[in-house]
């Protein structure tokens, strides 16, 4: 699974929503290979709808999604799936497929319409499980795995897809602290392989840890877009989330790291 050429994702004045109900508009950003963009925004700000529109699970109301300058508006599903990997929020699933079978489904875009995954596909799936450190869970029924293990399996599935762009919808939601950190370090590792990663999160600290760019979605529009240090400030967090937060710089191993420290007393007032 080698890094690919610099596929560049650009989103141009995208309006998204459902027939008769526009959720967001005028969203534009660009992403180079190997970059991580972190999408922040309150509940209901339209993050999932935006992601579904990026993947063309919803047709855009206006604007365009481009890969290497070419609009994906007319691409067949299979072509989209060879470029975009999608990590949805983990669900239980209806049938007890094993973890390996679930990850193998990530190979579907590389399997002929009437075909079945080959030995090569199987090796790719095993390699993806191994890359996420869950090779020992290969034969575990997916519904019997813990929330964290399921999330890792979904990342492995997206990895088996060999995408150049990875869209992750709140990959750390409902994970314990250890698994959150593990998923984020995998995000960083994937970016180092040359994959462009877009992920949404509720935790601005995660953006400080792994993002090259932060997009702050507020009421369907991009309130801010830029490097984490410029976007995540007490003023913007106050504006978007309505709470008081201090952004503190500390030094770790000689490098400056920022963290958010909410103030409970001031936020209650």
């Amino acid at each position, binding site marked *: 699974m080698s890094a690919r050429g610099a596929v560049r994702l650009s989103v141009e004045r995208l309006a998204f929503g459902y027939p008769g109900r526009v959720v967001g508009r005028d969203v534009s950003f660009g992403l180079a290979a190997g970059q991580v963009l972190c999408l922040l925004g309150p509940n209901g700000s339209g993050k999932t709808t935006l992601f*579904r529109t990026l993947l063309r699970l919803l047709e855009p109301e206006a604007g365009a999604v481009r890969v290497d300058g070419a609009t994906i508006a007319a691409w067949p599903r*299979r072509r989209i799936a060879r470029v975009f990997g999608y990590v*949805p929020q983990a669900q239980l*699933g209806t*049938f007890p*497929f094993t973890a390996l079978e679930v990850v193998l*489904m990530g190979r*579907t875009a590389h399997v002929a319409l009437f075909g*079945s995954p080959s030995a090569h596909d199987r090796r790719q799936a095993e390699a993806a499980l191994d890359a996420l450190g869950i090779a020992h869970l290969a034969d575990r029924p997916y519904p019997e795995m813990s929330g964290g293990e399921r999330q890792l399996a979904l990342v492995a599935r997206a990895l088996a897809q060999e995408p150049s762009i990875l869209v992750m919808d709140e990959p750390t939601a409902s994970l314990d602290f250890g698994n959150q950190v593990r998923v984020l370090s995998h995000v960083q590792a994937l970016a180092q392989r040359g994959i462009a990663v877009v992920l949404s999160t509720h935790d601005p600290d995660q953006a400080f840890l792994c993002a090259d760019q932060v997009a702050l979605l507020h009421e369907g529009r991009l309130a801010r877009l830029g490097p984490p240090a410029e976007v995540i400030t007490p003023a913007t967090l106050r504006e978007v989330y309505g709470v008081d937060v201090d952004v503190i710089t500390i030094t770790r191993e000689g490098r400056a790291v920022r963290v958010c420290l909410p103030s409970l007393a001031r936020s209650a007032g």
Partner: protein
Amino acid sequence: MTPAELSTVLWSRVTGVPHGLPSTIDTVVFNVRGPRIVAAILVGAALAAAGAAYQGLFRNPLVSPDILGVSTGAALGAVTGIYLSLGVVAIQSLAFVVGLGAVAVVYATGAALRRHDPILILVLAGIVIGTLLGSCVSLLKYLADPYNQLPAITFWLLGSLASVTIGDLKAVTPSVVLGLVPLVLLRWRMNVMTLGEDEARALGVDTRRLRLVVIAAATLMTAGVVSISGVVGWIGLLVPHLARFLVGPDFRRLLPVSILLGAGYLLGVDTLARTMARIEIPLGVLTAFIGAPFFIWVLAASRRGWQ
């Protein structure tokens, strides 16, 4: 008849050499028992395969091939034919055509009402139209001649293989084969469909087209076999569960195992229906009598097949 006589008769049919046994044996083997055995295998296999496909497609282990109204449609077609005192072939053709038509109407309704969840809309449309067709069946039963037509209607609605002929088998086999081929070819895509609309599409599956093909295939098979057997419930629901219990949910194994188990199950049940009592016991009654406790056992014995 002894097994030796049976093999002599079969061998002579293959080689063309006369066997010298009474010709009644020929009649029994090739016109009475033979077609019935082949029909049991064909009907059981088709219903189980359609059930396995639908349970995956609708992501629900409680779904049976009837969910989109194919059986109710076929029942209405057959009952109409009986009510109009038509011949056997006309009754079967009506069952087949109205069964297909019912699902086509359900699919068109679902497509016209396209919302976020196409599966839910399809199932709801299936329930509504199925209920409507069921009411039409009830109306015809109410209007039918209680001495001639009503027993025939009741017999058809409970299912039977007693009067299946070689001609029936020849008429129905193409629709079963035509239905099975796409399911076998799309076996891997069927697994991905169980992840749900968004995930399957994100993994590169054209869900709308695949759903249409699978529904058409399962409907063709079901309408075909129901037109010669009448309504035989339970197989399409129960057999895929048992198969999943044995080999897991991977459609590449689930489909062939469902086909084998469905064929074997109906063959066994039909043999019981024929031999248990002095009169034929209706198939639909027997599949339920055996199926219901068996189904509960499968549910209790496994969390693998259903969770």
